[in-house]
């Protein structure tokens, strides 16, 4: 029984121009203690998925689909009930930690605030818990008395992770947690997240545009394009044998230091307008192997290899 089941999630934003179909039929599962990476470029909907899970969508709403977390249907429950679930069972590490922290409060205060907003504990108890959490993310607990600007970028990010772990959730969503960090700090934070995931048997949804980051941080990867998932599979299998042309193109666009002389491949065009996306498969205007059927019929996610799903009309090939 997976911990989280997302089925046919559709989240639209409503603007003057029309409905932006940011997430348009996304389904995936996350098992207990497993890390799922969601990869895609800007505008593919990955952050919207995260916000939908946390019921934090502004200017739009979830128009269809279900989210089942540990047997609870997150979308159907009334707001009061969900407030009880939020942060206790599912929490979020938002993008750009430095900006997510209030500059005029100390780190400790902010973690304490997050705790006391959800459970009735005394301030000393909350402070003690905050110290514990900081230790867990490898920050000296005495730093709780520091302000955000006194901490480095990596430490701020870790403080946000600490905040997300405050109430021992089952699932943590990390939205581009290492994007703004230097490569060395990034490595440290990634390793930390992996350790936490394994040590606490935590489920993680790791959102990133960087496939190499996800290669290290997640057990399974879901590739998103234009509001839809196009491929989902175990990390090693997906990276070694990518089935979808977009996944292949994405992999091809990373310069690989380890091998010499490999040319990076460019993908022409740009992601489609989500108010009026292309007919059939949304990737077809940019696909190097497009067939006639691709312009008419949207491909469904099918299991082409064990635990490896692709939404594509092309016959599956060996990557």
């Amino acid at each position, binding site marked *: 029984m997976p911990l989280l089941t997302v089925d046919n999630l559709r989240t639209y934003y409503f603007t003057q121009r029309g409905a932006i179909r940011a997430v348009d039929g996304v389904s995936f599962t996350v098992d207990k203690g497993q890390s799922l990476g969601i990869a895609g*470029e*800007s505008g593919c909907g990955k952050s919207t998925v995260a916000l939908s899970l946390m019921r934090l969508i502004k200017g739009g709403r979830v128009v269809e689909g279900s989210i089942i977390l540990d047997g609870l249907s997150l979308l159907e429950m009334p707001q009061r009930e969900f407030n009880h679930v939020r942060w206790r069972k599912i929490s979020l590490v938002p993008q750009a930690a430095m900006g997510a922290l209030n500059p005029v409060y100390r780190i400790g205060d902010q973690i304490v605030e997050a705790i006391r907003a959800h459970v009735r504990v005394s301030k000393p108890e909350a402070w003690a818990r905050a110290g514990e959490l900081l230790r867990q993310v490898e920050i000296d607990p005495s730093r709780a008395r520091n302000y955000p600007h006194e901490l*480095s*970028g*990596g*430490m701020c990010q870790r403080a946000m992770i600490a905040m997300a772990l405050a109430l021992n959730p089952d699932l943590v969503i990390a939205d581009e947690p290492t994007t703004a960090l*230097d*490569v*060395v*700090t*990034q*490595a*440290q934070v*990634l*390793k930390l997240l992996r350790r936490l995931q394994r040590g606490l048997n935590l489920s993680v949804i790791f959102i990133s*545009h*960087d*496939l*190499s*980051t996800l*290669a*290290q941080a997640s057990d399974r990867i879901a590739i998103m394009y234009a509001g839809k998932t196009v491929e989902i599979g175990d*990390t*090693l299998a997906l*990276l*070694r044998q990518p089935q979808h042309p977009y996944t292949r*193109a*994405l*992999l*091809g*666009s*990373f*310069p*690989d*230091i*380890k091998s*010499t002389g490999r*040319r*990076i*491949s*460019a*993908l*022409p065009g*740009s*992601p489609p307008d989500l108010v009026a996306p292309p007919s059939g498969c949304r990737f077809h205007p940019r696909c190097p192997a497009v067939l006639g059927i691709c312009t008419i019929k949207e491909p469904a996610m099918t299991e082409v290899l064990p635990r490896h799903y692709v939404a594509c009309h092309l016959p599956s090939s060996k990557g």
Partner: protein
Amino acid sequence: MKKLFPLKRTSIFRGKQLYVRAVDGISFEIARGEAFGIVGESGSGKTTLARLILRLIEPTEGLVFFRDRDITSLNASEMKKLRRQMQIIFQDPYSSLDPRKDVFSTIAEPLRVHQLAGDASTLEKKVRETLKLVELPPSESFTSKMPDELSGGERQRVGIARALVLGPEFVVADEPVSMLDASVKAGIVSLLVDLKQKIGLTCAFITHEIGLAYYICDRIAVMYLGRIVELGSADEIIHEPLHPYTRLLMEAVPPLYPDENWASTIVQRGELPTGAGLPCGCRFHPRCTEAQGICRNKEPELAELKRDHYIACHLR
């Protein structure tokens, strides 16, 4: 043949009594037709260096030579003429284009500034040629577009077109793809490589992504906190890094396949110091696993260790 010959250079930004030594004693040469990579993380001074090379910021000390000519002592009008030969591509495609100018005006502006516009049809021709060079449609419907109607990749190409329209010999590319999506990045990187071959462009490529530098550049300089710590051919820097910092960088880059052993030694290596407080002696010593006594006391000089491979370290 020597193209760019910057000598010892120091730039110090004042903050009351404290100085932030953004670029602190850098010397290197770039040969004609070469793609020279400058790799560093934030705070390494690479952005400042980019602007110093082009004299968009004045150096506190030191000289920059372009074609054996000292550009740091030129006056404003001489400098203006020289700018036709040396241009810059900026990092952020979303803020480097004037939001009130359409594509045509943005690319035409350099020509107008230098009175090279000629009549309307000549100007149009030049703009269209440059657009073709960066693989953008030279049509009227495209040139009348405003920046907010363009994608990130298109904007960056317009920025490149603007840099190339005057036909410069030398271009500084300041993190030209770091704000673009992966698939778009590849396109721009390919474009730059093509341009280097097609028009023999000499280029200083600044980035924090060492993999990219390897792909594009012939030689690479690795910067740390205002100084160059290692300098050599791209192949050697990537495959045989000598300086502990370069090694750290190489180790920190995640490979495109899951690797349990990746970055296992990185765990507690501290982070970049911030602000004006620099470590004494070798700037990297607090994070260096091999640091010795001498590293704490004396700053190492950049010295040639192997042929054309320089390193600033006491331990090699």
